[in-house]
């Protein structure tokens, strides 16, 4: 069985406050725990801090899979407890670039003046892996990574274990440039990663009007996210990466509105911090 927990569901900027208390204000972070105890961390937004302190001290390896290096997806790294633990192997996976290594690019954040501690001074043993790496295995997980439509190199992940599939596309604008979205399967960004997934966690940052003013910023509207979920025939969809300006009540309204308009064949669970999913056998 694969256990999936949402530790941060907000996009772009952490947004704590009474108006976002129910959905949560932490930025992107999802934990995936496998049957044999392997732990994957999908993105290291501010949500990764609480995840880190919840993990058992007996855990000796954790793999952090970064979709991209925008701040809301890496800002929690310096506060991830396991990076301060000796004897722990932390593997960080993230998109390659044409010029700098993943380590060099993360060093830009994890070094003064942006951060007081150097990456090299962290107690854990840190290993870097560049993606897309096609198919690879981590413990009991089979993982596929592929580039998707979002500014700056960005990947999505398809995680398979125990007969279940989780697809994670937190920042994704598959409708960009498409005059009629969705196009066919083969011309849709992210389709291969999401096809038939048991659980799709996908960008749904904007309402329709907001998207019109933010085309090319790398995110989807609720309508587009639902259309993508329908095209890829997923079984369960989680709208994710909520805009920091959206209150709990607004998110309730837009997700309910999109669900009513599309009447999807798949289940819809709003991306609320703390939500857990159990997938597979």
């Amino acid at each position, binding site marked *: 069985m694969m256990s999936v927990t949402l530790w941060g569901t907000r996009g772009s900027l952490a947004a704590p406050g009474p108006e976002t208390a129910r959905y949560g204000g932490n930025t992107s972070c999802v934990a995936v725990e496998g049957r044999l105890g392997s732990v994957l961390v999908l993105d290291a937004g501010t949500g990764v801090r609480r995840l880190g302190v919840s993990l058992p001290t007996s855990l000796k390896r954790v793999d952090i899979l970064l979709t991209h290096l925008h701040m809301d997806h890496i800002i929690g790294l310096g506060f991830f407890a396991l990076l301060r633990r000796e004897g722990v192997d932390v593997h960080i996976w993230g*998109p*390659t*670039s*044409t010029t700098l290594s993943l380590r060099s690019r993360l060093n830009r954040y994890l070094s003064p003046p942006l951060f007081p501690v150097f990456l090299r001074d962290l107690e854990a043993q840190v290993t870097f892996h*560049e993606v*897309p790496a096609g198919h690879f295995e981590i413990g009991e997980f089979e993982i596929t990574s*592929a*580039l*998707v*439509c979002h500014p700056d*190199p960005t990947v999505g992940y398809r995680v398979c274990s125990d007969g279940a599939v989780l697809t994670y596309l937190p920042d994704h604008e598959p409708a*960009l*440039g*498409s*005059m009629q979205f969705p196009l*066919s*399967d*083969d*011309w*849709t*960004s992210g*389709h*291969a990663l999401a096809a038939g997934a048991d659980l799709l966690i996908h960008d749904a940052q904007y309402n329709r009007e907001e998207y019109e003013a933010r085309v090319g910023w790398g995110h989807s509207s609720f309508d587009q996210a639902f259309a993508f979920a329908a095209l890829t025939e997923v079984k369960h969809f989680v709208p994710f990466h909520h805009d920091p300006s959206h209150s709990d009540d607004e998110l309730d309204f837009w997700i309910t509105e999109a669900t009513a308009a599309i009447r999807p064949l798949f289940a819809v669970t709003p991306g609320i911090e703390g939500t857990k999913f159990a997938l597979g056998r």
Partner: protein
Amino acid sequence: MSQKEIEIILARHLASYLAMPILIVDTEGTLLYYNEPAEEILGMRYTDTGEMRASEWGVLFKPTSDEGEPLAPERLPLVVALAERQPARGSFWIRGLDNVLRHIDIAAFPLVGQADRYLGALAMFWEVEL
């Protein structure tokens, strides 16, 4: 049909917005996409033909030199860009499926994605007056 690489998808979207005729082929030379301005010159519509293998589209347009001699496929800029993974340019005559003879100038370049993934090639062409 498998999903296209993101760079190919974005290239198609870009091409669909540009007023310059554009062809996009994969590493096998399969014509993946051509935009509306290209349709005007080629005399056929993408929605009618869809993708075409190199063996199909390569012989459709009967490219010829200024002297009217048939051009060998390996001399075509798009084929050069694909085979040698280098930019290539050239001008020659083609006869579209609308049976109109046109003189065109082509600039082609290979498409190399992140992590040095070789994805195909893209050609831009113009009908030029002699």
